[in-house]
């Protein structure tokens, strides 16, 4: 089965203050119908830029290399009607903040039926009937009343369901979800994820799911890509990522997160702060924060290499460190030099500056 979405060697540069700055480098992955791929990373990691590149929503003047193929067609070469059809029928986006993506002076009904009336030339009555059906699919059963309401009359969770309903109106083949539950309460997040999972199963849609939450990615995604400073650092099965991480950054990210069922004397924080691709030093971008970094790591950006079983890591020492990454600093058996790790709490952020 050939993939629905194939991204190959995607790099993006944006013009900032007269010069081009790299925001994405060498991103490659593929996604099949019915599958969910997670994109995980911190600020500046490039996860949103990846999704924007796919939806062709990059700012004007962006320089893109590499290829994005959707159902065999080159997305980067789409123009005019073909691009419009791709954006309106084939892919849908769900954003983090539904309030920022709805018009506050237009009713929910206008919002939901607009695309149907304009793209599908559906008569208004018929569009309204379908909108009520769509709302029912996302668990809103008093649709007629909701259509007459304004966005401010709905809670965040309800409004996000309306967004999902709107993105489903055209039965897209690919959903791009950019932190769709981050602004929601945990109980609402759980309901919204359940709705997305069910609809995805029923329609066989593929989903690219951006989150900063590794636990959530593990729970809802088949495979996960971990990104750092505009590049993929790890790509493998979501379930294995937690037990067998292949990049020091993925492991450090998991360890830095507090746990609900135990308290530790000190969290193993990662020194320094996340960087963007254009701020990153030569060599491995994570090296300045990595407790396993050696001189050679700082020399050149390592390639994303296969580790078997469709697992990939962009760490020079991945094979040697495998199985040791989740050991704590004290127990890493001399693999890391441990210089100033975790304990110099106060000045941690200084390291990368």
């Amino acid at each position, binding site marked *: 089965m050939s993939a629905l979405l194939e991204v190959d060697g995607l790099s993006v540069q944006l013009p900032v203050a007269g010069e081009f700055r790299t925001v994405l480098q060498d991103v490659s992955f593929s996604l099949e119908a019915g599958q969910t791929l997670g994109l995980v990373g911190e600020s500046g990691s490039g996860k949103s830029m990846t999704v924007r590149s796919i939806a062709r929503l990059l700012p004007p003047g962006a320089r893109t290399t590499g290829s994005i193929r959707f159902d065999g067609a080159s997305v980067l070469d789409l123009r005019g009607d073909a691009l419009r059809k791709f954006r309106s029928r084939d892919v849908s986006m769900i954003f983090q903040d539904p309030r920022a993506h709805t018009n506050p002076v237009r009713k929910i009904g206008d919002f939901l039926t607009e695309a149907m009336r304009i793209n599908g030339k559906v008569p208004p009555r018929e569009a309204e009937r379908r909108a009520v059906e769509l709302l029912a699919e996302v668990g809103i059963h008093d649709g007629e009343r909701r259509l007459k309401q304004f966005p401010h009359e709905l809670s965040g969770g309800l409004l996000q369901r309306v967004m999902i309903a709107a993105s489903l109106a055209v039965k897209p083949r690919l959903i791009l979800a950019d932190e769709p539950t981050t602004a929601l309460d*945990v109980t609402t997040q759980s309901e919204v994820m359940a709705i997305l999972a069910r609809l995805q199963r029923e329609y066989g849609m593929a989903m690219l799911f951006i989150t900063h939450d590794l636990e959530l990615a593990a729970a809802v995604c088949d495979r996960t890509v971990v990104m750092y400073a505009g590049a993929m650092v790890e790509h493998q099965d979501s379930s294995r990522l937690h037990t067998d991480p292949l990049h020091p950054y993925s492991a450090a990210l998991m360890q830095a997160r507090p746990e609900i069922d135990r308290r530790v004397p000190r969290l193993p924080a990662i020194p320094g702060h996340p960087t963007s691709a254009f701020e990153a030093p030569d060599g491995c971008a994570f090296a300045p924060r990595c407790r396993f970094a050696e001189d050679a790591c700082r020399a050149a950006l390592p390639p994303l290499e296969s580790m078997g079983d469709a697992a990939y890591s962009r760490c020079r020492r991945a094979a040697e460190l495998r199985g040791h990454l989740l050991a704590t600093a004290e127990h890493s058996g001399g693999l890391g030099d441990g210089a100033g790790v975790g304990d110099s709490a106060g000045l941690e952020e200084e390291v990368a500056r």
Partner: protein
Amino acid sequence: MIAAPGTEPTTAASGAGRTEPILAVDGLRKTFGRGRKEAVAVDGISFELHEGGSLGIVGESGSGKTTTARMLIGLEQPTAGRILVDGSDLTRPARRIKDLRARGRLIQIVFQDPYTSLDRRQKVGDCLGEVVRLHFGLSGSALNGRVRELGELVGLQERQLRALPRELSGGQRQRVAIARALAAEPKILILDEAVSALDVSIQAQILNLLADIREQRGVSYVFISHDLAVIRQITDTAIVMRHGQVVEQGQTANVLDSPQDPYTRLLRDSVPHAGWQPGTVK
């Protein structure tokens, strides 16, 4: 009351034997609007915090946790109930400058977004200096020394103290907000979702920093968060709020490990974990 470097009283140790809580909240209630439009934000809650302790307030949006924080620092006047801080009645917001400053030396707050809660045209060192001058009347080298000391406490170097907020990273800005709150040497620090907007790797740094500060300074925390894992890491006791009421309270470990209230259980089970099936926790 000038705090000379190195002579900070270890209130945590000296306060250990005290039985009077540093913060006692009794029957606190806040309603907005009246008549048919009346909305109850906080519905008669009571809790206590002991000196050097850390109390978590957990709840979802609309549970009343932020309204509670706003009443504690005097931004809202309670409809009913009482707030006692270190023996002083702080139920009513201060009106006079003198009372405002006295309140500022008892209780301070750190908000979620350090960017909107800092003056973007003021260098962060000046921002800290302003608070120190106001509360302790320091000037000249004594003032500068105190600002440097506050910077050190939260891990900010002199170069960063000369910077504007926009020149700092999110984590550094939150360090500034914490230093500003500590500049008045309050007994109680309220942290309202203070680490929620930070990247995971930075969140861990700030949580470690807050743990150090509590240990060194003996300041007590009221830590408001929707994130149960963060609450587990940073608090000793916790209350769970829903619709303005406290549905469960106790030692944080007990509340999270063996929740008695169905709502606390629902909250706990909604957190993604291995083998999680979204939406099946009802």
